[in-house]
């Protein structure tokens, strides 16, 4: 018999919140929109194959170069951080806005368990869209000129899947923190993504203050670029990149859990 004066242990409580949040998160309009955006390269890859099959002379990017561009520029630099922003900042904000947070907080579960369950639901929802899109895009593009070169590129696919997952974790942790810290976190989040993260293109130590520098150091794709990013492109060691990203994610999540635990939510009537 469970002691009803004590809250549920962390793991079962997290699992319960995860189950509850997942159902609402997967079928939300936000997930649908982000899913379409994340899966767009798979559609592009189909179009590429159709164009190639129609016998149009191949001009421009090679299939694997296009895949490299999609991974490095579209997913890692832009769309996955954006998906993390819209999902992770709303983990608690949606409950506040819908005035349903009270129902969660009055259950016998700890606040860190609520946050962990919701973060896990966000991560699973985002991965459920991003990873299949990456796999489909890779195979559609890598096999565009036959299967002979696919095997050689497969290690890159495995690496890309890992880095995509890590970028959702790292940006998700940061935006979860912003979500519990700020009342309107979307604008600061956008400023961070498309302002602060541009420091990655500057010389010296400044790029190390961005998440994108560490993330793009983990992938092997280096699409040719022009401008500042070309002049000062930096690639950090893999070991350092992994350490920084894991430590940063843990710190962001711990800070978010601490703030969420301490904060008093007064719901507007």
């Amino acid at each position, binding site marked *: 018999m469970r002691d009803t004066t004590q809250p549920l242990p962390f793991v079962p409580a997290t699992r319960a919140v995860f189950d509850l949040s997942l159902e609402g998160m997967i079928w939300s309009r936000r997930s649908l929109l982000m899913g379409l955006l994340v899966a767009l390269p798979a559609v592009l890859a189909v179009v590429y194959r159709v164009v190639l099959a129609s016998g149009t002379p191949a*001009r421009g990017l090679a299939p694997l170069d296009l895949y490299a561009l999609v991974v490095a520029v579209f997913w890692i630099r832009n769309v996955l951080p954006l998906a993390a922003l819209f999902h992770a900042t709303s983990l608690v904000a949606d409950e506040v806005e819908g005035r349903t947070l009270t129902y969660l907080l009055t259950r016998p579960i700890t606040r860190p368990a609520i946050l962990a369950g919701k973060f896990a639901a966000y991560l699973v929802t985002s991965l459920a869209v991003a990873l*299949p899109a990456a796999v489909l895009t890779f*195979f559609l593009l890598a096999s565009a*000129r036959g299967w*002979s070169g696919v095997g050689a590129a*497969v290690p890159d696919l495995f690496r890309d899947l890992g880095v995509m997952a890590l970028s959702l974790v790292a940006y998700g942790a940061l935006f979860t923190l912003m979500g519990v810290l700020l009342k309107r976190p979307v604008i600061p989040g956008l400023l961070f993504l498309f302002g602060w993260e541009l420091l990655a293109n500057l010389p010296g130590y400044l790029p190390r203050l961005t998440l994108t520098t560490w993330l793009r150091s983990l992938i092997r794709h280096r*699409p*040719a670029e022009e401008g500042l990013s*070309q002049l000062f492109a930096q690639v950090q060691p893999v070991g350092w990149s992994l350490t920084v990203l894991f430590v940063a994610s843990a710190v962001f999540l711990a800070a978010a859990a601490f703030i969420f635990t301490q904060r008093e939510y007064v719901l507007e009537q």
Partner: protein
Amino acid sequence: MSRSRLVLFASMSVVVLGVLAGLGALWMDPARAAVGPLPGEALVLPADTRFVMGIDAKRVVASPFWARYGSERSMRPQAWRQLEEMTGLDPARDVDQIVVAGSGTATSRTPPLVLAVGRFDPDRIAQTLQTSGKATLRDVGGVRVYEFAGPSPSASRTQTLAMALLDRRTVVLGPPDGVEATVRHRAAGESPLQQNKGLLGLVERVRPGSSFWMVGDQTLLASLPNTFSGPGTGGSGDMGPSMNLPTLKAVTVTADLDPEVSLAIVGEAIDDPSATKLADVVRGFVALATLQARQKPELQRLGSAISVATEANRVLLNARLPYELIDSLRAMAMTSSAGATDEGSPAEEAAKPK
């Protein structure tokens, strides 16, 4: 099963199937070889090899590069031309891979060993060589080795080259002592190249499946000049102060030819500051080339075609050159060389009637 679980299951199935298909493709990839892209047959090459170069003949022949420039003799690799001229083989038809292994310095004129893997008819090759009357035959451990006079890098003299058919899949061509040693290693079942751990370590890092790849170690690069003169500022053709380039420990080059020429060069410097310095020098050259290219509309894409980055002590240079750009660069080179020929020597200029 709830709807959300169904979505998760479907998504997970796609990822798991993709990973399994990827592992299958990796396992069955024909490019999978003994060490990186190096075919197992090439491990009989000498242990003192300083650089190894590989050409995937099948990919080269299937590429737009071959369609555009295949008929031009000067655009074919030297090892390719040697195989064509000395053995009567058609690399485009008979050869799958060519491996070139050099043990000389970067400036030496010792020809490297060329090992070709493909499908060969020993009787036809023997007949071609014997009827030409230029080759002399001798027996090395039961393997027929043909010796003949081949062209030297210096056009004024010739040098003796040898060729041996190790089996129906492997031909080795090069200096007679190197070919003979390779034949003997093969007969003894030895793999001397495996002793060269440093070079094989570099080969392991090369991505299999490239049309062309090359690795060179420190012993090869140490003989390269590391000082060059900067341009003068006076405009009178005088040279400015000389500049020291950081020494490279190793260099790796990979290239693909379809649908455009993409080149990846990784140079490993002795430390991080050296890599940064070298990258800065390369960026300077790229910037100069870009500035010059902006004056010509057909070379506009040169600026965005090349990227330079550093990763600890490594300098990474990526270039993507569309064939139209290569055509423009070749046309420029031809024009300037024709201009230089037209100008002639100062003595000729003086002799011209005014």
